[in-house]
C-alpha cells in the first residue's frame, strides 16, 4: 500500500471558514488543478447540494463536470467506478451515508475489489462523499455511522475529518489518491468553523493520526463528531486533575496504529469513542489491536463507547440519547482511570 506522505504545509494565508466550505474549496481547487476531476450526485448542481457543499461549482465548472443525477444511488457509485476505471476522477456525493446500503455492491463489490480481481490492470481513483451521523430528526434511515464497513472490505480507504482544516486537506488527498476513498463528512459539523490554510497544495496525509490533546492518564481515540465531545470531557477531567490524551485517527483505512500504540504504551489505559453502534464498530477493531499489541503493558482493559444497540429514533431529542454525550464520556474516563 503506497501512502501519500506529503507533509501538512499551510501557506501564508489562512481563512476561517466552516467545514462545508472547506470541503467545497477542496473540490474547487482540485477541479481547477486537474480537469479529469468531476462531480455527480443528486442536487449537486443547480441547488449546490442538499447541505450546500457543492455551491457555486456548477457555475464554475459547467454541467459536464458537475452532474445532477436522478435518484439513483446505485448508478451514482457504479458510474463513478466505471469512470474511475477509464481515466477520470469522479467525486460521487450520496445525500446520506445510509445510502451506501443502496450502492453496497458498487462500493464493496466493485470499487473495493476490481483492481485486485483484474491483477492490477485497473485503477479506481474515485471518492465517495457520504454525509454521516446525526443531523437532528432525520430518523433511523438517515442517521447512521457506517464507517466500519469500509474497514471490513479490503480495498477502500476510509476518512472521517473532524475539523474544517482536516476536511479540506483530507479531501484533497482523497482526490489525489489512486485508490477509492469513502469520505465521511459529519452532518453536524458542516456549520462548525475553523482555520483552514488557503494554500492549494495543503494536503493532510492519510494514515497519520492527530493528537488533539496531550495527557498521561489515559488515551482516548475518538472520531468524527466525537472528537470535540471527547475534548470537552477531557477538559472536565483536567479540572479533576487527570490529563487525558485525545487522538483523532482521521483515517481508519489506513489506520495509524503507531501513534495510538505509542500513546497507550505511555498511559497504560485506552478508550475508543465513536458515534457508530458500539457492537462490531471500529472500536472493536482498534481495541482488539491494542490488546493484541500491548496486553502486558496495559493497566486495564480497553473500553469502548458507541451508540446503543438500537436504530436511531426520529425525534431529535431522543436521538442524542443513543450516542455518547460529554457527561457520559467523562464518567467513563473517570471509571477507566480508577480501574
Amino acid at each position, binding site marked *: 500500500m503506497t501512502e501519500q506522505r506529503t507533509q501538512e504545509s499551510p501557506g501564508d494565508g489562512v481563512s476561517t471558514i466552516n467545514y462545508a466550505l472547506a470541503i467545497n474549496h477542496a473540490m474547487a481547487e482540485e477541479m481547477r488543478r486537474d480537469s479529469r476531476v468531476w462531480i455527480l450526485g*443528486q442536487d449537486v448542481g443547480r441547488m449546490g447540494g442538499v447541505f450546500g457543499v457543492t455551491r457555486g461549482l456548477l457555475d464554475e465548472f459547467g454541467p459536464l463536470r458537475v452532474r445532477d443525477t436522478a435518484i439513483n444511488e446505485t448508478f451514482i457509485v457504479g458510474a463513478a467506478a466505471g469512470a474511475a476505471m477509464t481515466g477520470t476522477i469522479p467525486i460521487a456525493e450520496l445525500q446520506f451515508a445510509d445510502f451506501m446500503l443502496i450502492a453496497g455492491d458498487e462500493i464493496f463489490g466493485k470499487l473495493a475489489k476490481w483492481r485486485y480481481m483484474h491483477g492490477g490492470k485497473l485503477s479506481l481513483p474515485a471518492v465517495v462523499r457520504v454525509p454521516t451521523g446525526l443531523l437532528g430528526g432525520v430518523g433511523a434511515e438517515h442517521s447512521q455511522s457506517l464507517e466500519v464497513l469500509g474497514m471490513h472490505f479490503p480495498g477502500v480507504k476510509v476518512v472521517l475529518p473532524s475539523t474544517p482544516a482536516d476536511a479540506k486537506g483530507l479531501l484533497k488527498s482523497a482526490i489525489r489518491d489512486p485508490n477509492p476513498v469513502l469520505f465521511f463528512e459529519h452532518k453536524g459539523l458542516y456549520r462548525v468553523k475553523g482555520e483552514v490554510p488557503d494554500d492549494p497544495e495543503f494536503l493532510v496525509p492519510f494514515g497519520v493520526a492527530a493528537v488533539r490533546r496531550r495527557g498521561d492518564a489515559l488515551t482516548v481515540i475518538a472520531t468524527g463528531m466525537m472528537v470535540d465531545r471527547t475534548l470537552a470531557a477531557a477538559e472536565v477531567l483536567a479540572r479533576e486533575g487527570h490529563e487525558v490524551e485525545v487522538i483523532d485517527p482521521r483515517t481508519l483505512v489506513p489506520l495509524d496504529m503507531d501513534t495510538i500504540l505509542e500513546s497507550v504504551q505511555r498511559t497504560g489505559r485506552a478508550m475508543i469513542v465513536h458515534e457508530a453502534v458500539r457492537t462490531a464498530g471500529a472500536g472493536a477493531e482498534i481495541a482488539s489491536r491494542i490488546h493484541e499489541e500491548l496486553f502486558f503493558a496495559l493497566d486495564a482493559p480497553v473500553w469502548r463507547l458507541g451508540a446503543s444497540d438500537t436504530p436511531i429514533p426520529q425525534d*431529535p431529542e431522543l436521538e442524542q440519547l443513543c450516542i455518547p454525550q460529554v457527561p457520559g464520556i467523562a464518567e467513563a474516563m473517570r471509571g477507566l482511570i480508577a480501574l
Partner: protein
Amino acid sequence: MASSAPRKRAAPVKTEVDATRATDLYRTVARIRAAELVLQRHITEHGFGGFWHPGLGQEGVQAGAVAALRTDDYMFIAHRGLGYALAKGMSLESLFGDLFARTVGSTGGKGGGTVHFVDPERGVLGQGGAIGSSFVLGAGAAISGQMLGTDRVCAIFFGDGASSRGTWHESALQASVWKLPIVWICENNGWAVSARISEQSPTENIADRASAYGVPGVIVDGQDAIAVFDAVTEAVDRARAGHGPTLIEAKTMRIRGHYEGDRQKYRDDLLVGDEIPRDPLGILREHVPASVADQLDDDARHEAESVLATVLEAPRADPSIIYKDVWS
C-alpha cells in the same frame, strides 16, 4: 405474457358526479389542507425539530386515491405530507403526535418531523426513508394479501423522483408477471428536491413507462380528486379481480419547498403567495353546495387547530423508549 394491452388515457370523461362522494372528498381535502396550513404556520413561527415535507396543493391526489381503497387495503405512503394517512382513517391526533414526538403519536413517541406514520389496522404500512423502498415492500404486502386468501389490494404512493430508482424496475417486472394486486400512484409534482422531472425523465410522462412492464399506464389530473378517485377505482377493481397492477400518474405540483424552510433558490416557477393553481378544493366546489363546503372548511380548521393545541400539551415518551421495540 401481458394480460391486457397497455393503454394510456386522459382523465375519464365525467358523466355524473355522486354528490355524497364529492362531499366526502371535499371533507377529506379540507381536513388535509387545514392540517397542512396549521403546521406550516406553527413551523414558521416556532421552528420544528426535524424536517417537514409539506403536501400543500397535492391533497387532491391523496384524498381521491385513498377514497378508492377499502380500509383493509394495504398502503405505502410517500413522504409528502400527511394526507394519505389522514384519508385512510388515522386520527389527526396520532399524526400530529408523531410529528411532535408525543406518546399519542402512532409510533408512540419515537416520531419527530416527517415520520413513519403507521396503522396496520387501517392498512397504513409506512414510507421508506430511502425513497423508492416502497416498491419492493408493497409487492411483498400484495403477495401476503393473496396468500392469506384475501382480496386486498396494495396502493403504493411515490413521487416522480422516486420513479428513477431500480427498485421500481425490479418490482414492476415481477409484479406484472405475477399479476400482483397493486396500484402504483405517482404524484408527479414536477420536482425532486431541486431536480425538474422534465430533465430527469427521457419520456414526457412517467406513465409512458408502463408498456415496458405490460401494465396499463394512466394519466390523471391530480388536482381533480374525483378524476383521481375514478382512475384509482378502476385500477383497484382490476387488481382485485386478479388482473395485475396499474401505473397511475397524477399530474400535480409542489407548491412549497422540498421541506418547510427550503428557500428554493433553484426554482424559477415559484408561485406568488402560495396561490394553488387549480386548487383541488375549488374544483370540488363545483359539486358541493357552497354552504356545505364552507362548513366543512370551518370544521377542518377548527379540528386542526384544536388537535394541534392538544398535541402540543401531550406528554413526550420516557427516554427509555429508545431501547424499546428493537426486537419482537
